[in-house]
């Protein structure tokens, strides 16, 4: 399978196989006009299988979203067809307006114009809790 290399843009690599689409949706890549490629189940020496997302535009992406969905993913910044920077993304301490609290008893279910905020409760368990009601994500 051949995907054209990009000149200026971002490659999100080493995404755990199966998480690529979720990351695509949460990053809002569906709304972009530029070329975006998702490669699913690519072979990987490190992971066995992995997903990759290539974005053919120098747009800002939310590192918090990437760190939240898969802290093992790497972000490659491509400039003039070359790798300009390679970044590992840690799990963010706080997630702001990335996902919504599902607890129907939470104040976020009724209060207008409120930020939906989750805090990292356990890095080892990849556990986030709503700062308002403490519900698990």
């Amino acid at each position, binding site marked *: 399978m051949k995907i054209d290399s990009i000149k200026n843009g971002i490659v999100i690599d080493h995404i755990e196989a199966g998480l690529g689409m979720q990351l695509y949706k949460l990053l809002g890549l569906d709304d972009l006009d530029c070329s975006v490629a998702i490669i699913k189940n690519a072979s990987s020496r490190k992971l066995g299988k992995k997903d990759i997302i290539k974005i053919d535009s120098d747009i800002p992406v939310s590192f918090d979203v990437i760190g939240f969905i898969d802290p093992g993913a790497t972000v490659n910044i491509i400039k003039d067809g070359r790798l300009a920077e390679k970044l590992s993304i840690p799990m963010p301490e706080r997630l702001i307006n990335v996902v919504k609290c599902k607890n129907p*008893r939470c104040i976020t279910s*009724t209060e207008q114009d409120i930020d939906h905020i989750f805090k990292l409760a356990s890095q080892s368990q990849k556990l986030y809790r709503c700062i*308002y009601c403490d519900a698990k994500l």
Partner: protein
Amino acid sequence: MRNLINIMDLSAEEIDELIKLANDIIKSPDRYNEACRHKILATLFFEPSTRTRLSFESAMLSLGGSVLGFSEANSSSAAKGESVADTIEVVSGYADIIAMRHPKEGAPIVASSHTSVPIINAGDGGHFHPTQTLTDLMTIYHEKGGFENLTIGLCGDLKFGRTVHSLIGAMSRYKGVKFVLISPEELKLPSFVKQEYIKDKGIEYSQCTSLEDVIGDLDILYMTRVQRERFFNEEDYLRLKDSYILTADKLKSAGESLSILHPLPRVNEISTEIDNDPRACYFRQAHFGRYIRMALIMKLLEVSA
């Protein structure tokens, strides 16, 4: 400026200070009857309450202050769809301190980010109820002389019982405490409370469904009501509401030094036949609520006698 949203906002030392101040208020009430002169407490109760609201109002009036507010959402602009944020912004201009109860969890956190006056969480859904916990702690202190080396049984609705969550958090800071969690399967303690306050701290605990099996091991029995208002499904409420009823017969297996606490109101989970038993502390407990809230209001308003 400080708020009280979660009992864990207060250190163990600060709780000791509040209990000390409350004891002094009981001993010399006249010294404190002008402490909050010209100060106004707003009691914003978006959810009905008798005990908590009246004890806050009694506390502020006993300190020489004034009170205003509403006792249910229908009599406030919340019924017109006003947000918590807007209500608080407005009330902040009318009061020096706000005590609020709201059915939605986390509402006091939203409130505290929209005001410069202290916010006291008087109960947010099934989440936290820190001033009840202060009342519980003051009762335990009076009954047991301290907080260490106690075996505390918590019985009934441990899932939605916000007073239970706050009390476990507060007591988890003292040495030698053990918890016995007694509830039906459907009303077990939420995992976040168990993880954060019991497991992570290496505290000894056990879980069971039978009160009779464990009542003899307890220093404190904290009874709770199965709350109709926390259920989305009436059938579930009806099935679980009579899970635990403490009777004189069940109390025969308990030790003489047991202290029975209940945040009240009770429905039928404690039989009235034991009200005169010296081990029944729940009415004394309710009375302590006024004094510990007086101490809390003074602390948050930074006033002295």
